[in-house]
């Protein structure tokens, strides 16, 4: 897909995120908006997936390790055709397939249930090991939050990924610098992220997480790195990206907009309620 088209999809994904979280009156808009471009690039350009055959054993896998950003994942999956876009308004409601955090048991297209931080990347490492054992051609992608890097399990997984030479694994850190309690640097310093992954034996790439060309280039470059090392892309992002009053504001980590705010947000994103 052309970069311009990917940008259009990402814009629609952002509108979907706001609509879903507004409908639920619950959820995590900030970290969803920050990874919207990365997820769009993955599902519309990079990954080999088929909405008509979501369990295809040969498909690329995706694990949203920062599972709370599921409004972004649901929106991308819906726009890609895994389920009807109208279903986004059932998000977080009783009986919905769109659980508060991704649930592989209920919704087609979810490769791993996540939500408890740190576990997703570890499961993704297991998937990549299975792929190596089977000499399978699929690749495994996982998006992590930067705050999530405070979980020790992430580094157990990082160690194992290098040890088992998983060059079929690509992690993307959604580096928006904020977590619920405030800036990462204030809550628990995670920087330097690149140096940490390098020390754990990973290839490290950087990208502007809101420049579609930069994101696609980094993801394509990661595919070419078959040097026996896993690759991480540290994507610089802005929490709440696209909605001015949500941008760089930790208060929008896990809060839904009211009607007025949703209308304002959608207007900025070129849509309406």
């Amino acid at each position, binding site marked *: 897909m052309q970069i311009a088209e990917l940008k259009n999809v990402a814009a629609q994904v952002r509108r979907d995120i706001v609509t879903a979280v507004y409908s639920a009156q619950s959820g995590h808009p900030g970290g969803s908006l920050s990874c919207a471009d990365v997820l769009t690039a993955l599902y519309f350009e990079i990954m080999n997936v088929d909405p008509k055959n979501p369990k295809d054993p040969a498909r690329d*896998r995706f694990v949203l390790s920062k599972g709370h950003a599921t409004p972004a994942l649901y929106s991308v999956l819906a726009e890609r055709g895994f389920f009807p876009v109208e279903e986004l308004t059932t998000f977080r409601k009783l009986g919905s397939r769109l659980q508060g955090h991704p649930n592989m048991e209920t919704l087609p297209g979810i490769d*791993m*249930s996540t939500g408890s931080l740190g576990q997703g990347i570890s*499961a*993704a490492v297991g*998937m990549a090991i*299975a792929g190596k054992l089977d000499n399978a051609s699929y690749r495994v992608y996982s998006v992590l939050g930067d705050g999530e890097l405070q979980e020790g*399990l992430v580094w157990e997984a990082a160690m*194992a990924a290098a040890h*088992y030479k998983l060059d079929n694994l690509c992690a993307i850190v959604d580096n928006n610098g904020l977590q619920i309690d405030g800036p990462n640097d204030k809550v628990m310093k995670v920087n330097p992220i690149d140096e940490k992954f390098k020390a754990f034996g990973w290839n490290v790439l950087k990208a502007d997480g809101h420049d579609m060309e930069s994101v696609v280039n980094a993801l394509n470059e990661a595919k070419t790195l078959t040097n026996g090392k896993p690759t991480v892309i540290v994507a610089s992002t802005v929490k709440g990206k696209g909605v001015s009053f949500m941008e760089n504001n930790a208060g929008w980590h896990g809060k839904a907009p009211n009607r007025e705010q949703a209308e304002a947000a959608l207007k900025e994103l070129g849509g309406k309620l």
Partner: protein
Amino acid sequence: MADKIATRDSFAKALVELGAENPNVIAMNADLSASTKTADFEKAYPERFINAGIAECNMLAMAAGMAHCGKTVFASSFCMFASGRAFEIIRNSIAHTNANVKLCASHGGLAVGEDGATHQSVEDVAIMRDIPNMVVLSPADDVSARKLIKACAAFEGPAYVRLGRAAAPVVYPEDMEFTIGKAVTVKEGNDVTIISTGCMLETCMKAAEQLAAEGIKARVLDMHTIKPIDADAIVAAAKETKGIVTVEDHSVIGGLGSAVAEVLCTQQPAKMQMVGIKDTYGESGKPDELYEKYGLTVKDVVAAAKAL
């Protein structure tokens, strides 16, 4: 005298056989492959043996990922670290997703001995039993352990198998069949019922012999499956005998005793005694010394049966 074989060795044997039968069987360990005996599998199928290093949480989340890519994963560690440290990973990444991961954990209970309280898991059955989708097994001897581990491989979904460190007498004939969720009546009797799980079966059988010498005919059940528990066998025992004694090398809170009590109080109220660890930690010592001090001996079972 029957042979004595530790159920962790039975696990090793069954696992190697499963490896031969199914190329999708994977064995995982967290730097305890000599102790939990997965080293035998490593020798036979080195490419299908994944050591996670000393990282039980990562082992089990990776196990979930592998299972969801078509693998049947047998992961192993000590009961303490498998069920305790990794509880939330087991709950969220394995059981909630119905991942085909069989967690075969050794070194359950006070029988661990000299390593002391930090390694003596007396809570693991309670922890695992509480997780939806989880099957919990606690086999008594070599034959039942091997057959139940094979039975685990035959269904899709999570299971926790509690294995012993110490050698246990072989009770069952090789051709005996075991069904998950179906208790074995090891000894018939209609005066009292003794329900054993795991390595306590020998103790329970000896207690039944002593009771028999005093004219009390004890029924002995081997509750190798703690979840799903065999409610029919428990209800029958409650109707047909004077009361039930549960015997486990585990806390009386949340383990076999609790599971049996849950059935009794809702379906067939009956008198009951629980022999097990009384809400306390263990300590270093020889297994026999610990069983004596913490009340898990033949005389404790006999006294409990008489107290019904």
